């Protein structure tokens, strides 16, 4: 697996000089009926020009909310603090009018469900043309011509005909392509894709990812891939941030992360990837379930599920430690036993939590 990984993205690992997007200490809290809870408790992340960064985490870990907050797209009752710099420009607290000029123009975002992320009563072309005209001075006719070009760019056959069709006339995969076409309509610098393939069939997933990747390379986009699928990250990202309970617990290049994860949660995730060769074994899973928001355990949020837990973990939430180009938020980041990524079974031998 690791050999395949390094061959996939070996050229793009050098440290970026000036990041396109730089998130520091991003926190998102929600007030609801008097109570308050934090969905994001500190995300640090850099995305360089032309870089693909994966954000991995379970549902409800705060990975999507964090990126929505970075773009000012969270609901009205959200409290966003910390710093999100885009090309050096602070986005947190920026007036809505200025954020609108950045959204869709410099930073685009696409969402999980292509069935519902297009407006059912507008033609696909009109929706793409709208994206174009919101940021460029073009006539309706010019914008529609651009929409045809964009549909061709994402490999939709017969774009001239398709442009005047409605979303319900498109298949799921084609809708997601149309959504991608809309997102790149204004040549953005950064594209945030929130679970872009989760709602699609496996074969279609591969197509969509390849469309995204080829666009990313052709347009030199920075790409943030939010996913719960480590396979997607392994195949497509340069760097990965692993999110647990609203914070980044590990960040590393893809090859480093899979070869030598330095956080027990990451190890658990990698160990739970199904292995074709040892298909008779029961699939490994991390015991327990993620804590409910607003009811986090004291200390390290992962400690109730961790196999390395010691007294310290219950008292102290570990900071994100710099391990030399990579980061881990574990007290024992440097002293964890070696990890054998080639086989999940070997990981499970240590944990002893797998039934044969």
């Amino acid at each position, binding site marked *: 697996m690791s050999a395949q990984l390094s061959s996939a993205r070996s050229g793009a690992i050098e440290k970026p000089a000036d990041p396109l997007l730089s998130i520091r200490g991003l926190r998102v809290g929600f007030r609801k009926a008097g109570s308050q809870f934090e969905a994001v408790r500190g995300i640090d992340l850099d995305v360089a020009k032309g870089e693909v960064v994966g954000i991995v985490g379970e549902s409800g870990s705060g990975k999507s909310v964090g990126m929505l907050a970075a*773009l000012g*797209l969270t609901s009205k009752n959200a409290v966003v603090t910390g710093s999100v710099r885009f090309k050096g420009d602070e986005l947190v607290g920026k007036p*809505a009018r200025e954020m*609108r*000029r*950045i*959204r*869709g*123009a410099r930073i*685009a*975002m*696409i*969402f*999980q*469900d292509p069935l*519902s*992320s*297009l*407006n*059912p*009563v*507008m*033609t696909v072309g009109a929706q793409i043309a*709208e*994206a174009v005209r*919101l*940021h460029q001075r073009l006539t309706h006719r010019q914008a529609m011509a651009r929409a045809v070009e964009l549909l061709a760019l994402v490999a939709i056959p017969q774009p001239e005909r398709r442009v005047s069709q*409605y979303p*319900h006339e498109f298949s799921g995969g084609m809708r997601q392509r149309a*959504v991608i076409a*809309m*997102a790149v309509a204004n040549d953005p610098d950064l594209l945030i894709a929130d679970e872009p393939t989760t709602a699609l069939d496996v074969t279609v997933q591969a197509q969509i990812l390849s469309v995204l990747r080829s666009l990313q390379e052709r347009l030199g986009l920075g790409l943030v891939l939010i996913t719960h699928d480590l396979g997607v990250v392994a195949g497509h990202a340069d760097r990965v941030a692993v999110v647990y309970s609203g914070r980044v617990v590990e960040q590393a290049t893809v090859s480093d992360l899979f070869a030598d994860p330095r956080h027990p949660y990451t190890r658990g995730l990698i160990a739970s990837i199904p292995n074709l060769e040892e298909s008779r074994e029961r699939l490994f899973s991390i015991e327990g379930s993620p804590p409910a928001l607003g009811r986090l355990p004291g200390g390290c949020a992962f400690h109730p599920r961790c196999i390395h837990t010691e007294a310290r973990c219950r008292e102290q939430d570990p900071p994100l430690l710099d391990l030399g180009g990579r980061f881990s938020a574990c007290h024992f980041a440097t002293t964890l036993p070696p990890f054998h990524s080639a086989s999940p079974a070997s990981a499970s031998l240590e944990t002893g939590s797998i039934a044969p």
Partner: protein
Amino acid sequence: MSRYILRRLIAMPFLVLGIVTIAFLITTVTKGDPLTAIVAEQQMSNPEVVAAAKARWGLDRPLPERYMIYLGNLLSGDLGTSFITKRNVGTDILYRLPATLELVFAAMIFGTTLGIVLGVLAAYFRNSLIDHGARLFALFGSSLPVFWSGLGLLFIFSVVVNWLPGPGRLDARLPLPPGVTGFLTIDSLLAGNITVFKDALWHLLLPAFVLGWTVSGTISRLVRANMLDVMSREFVLTARAKGASEFRVVIVHALRNTMVPTLTVIGYSFAYLITGAVLTETIFSWPGMGSYAVEAARALDFPAIIGVTIVGGLAFLVTNLVTDILYVVANPRVRLS
């Protein structure tokens, strides 16, 4: 779609025949004797007078024959003669229908606009003061009886502060504009008579508000509920992520998606009010279809009752067709076939 419309148009005469038949038969199963409307009370014991009246109005013939005569007359555009006004029912209706239509159009424009605006605002500012205010307004609109709100508002605006005229369509001292559409506001404008136009408009204002208020209550609650649903859908987030303004997100993206159920209610309310605005017409002395229907029913004026029923049925037929066509405009997923 044009084939669909053609099919609907072809079906329409048969539906009208159904309406006419049912309307005709209903009058025969009522217990009341229409002769009481025709013959003076003291003459009812005089068999000669009664027999003459029966022969005069054809009431001595068997039912199937009466039905066929009625249908024959109807085909030549004759709705029969009213027992009470002794005028042709068609003439009566042509005089009263425009009055009702003018009132109902005004009320619908008013009620729909108000209902949609309040519904959108209530949904967007959910649980805020605006939301509560809009819901209270809607609640009053749909639950206050018109004879209460109408009389109350008439008292306040016409009597207490004297901003608006009293009941009626036009000041009695003003000349009626030449009848083109039957809408006093439009006819006066066509005739270039601004004084009459203003007066007609002032007279229209309060009854249209009272009637529109009841409609706006239903519409605003419907729009609010649908907007809340639509605003949580992902394409709204997509629109925001594109950099669209909130106004654009709400009006262009969300509101259009709530239009199908709203159109249904608008269409239904419109058709209903053509014959159903009785209370408003009575309170504001509006010479419309509703009051005509009530007068006809009270006097067992069968030709008038049948005539009003046919008009009411036609109103529903036409409105339903228009609504169905508008569905396609509002929602491309609707296929008419």
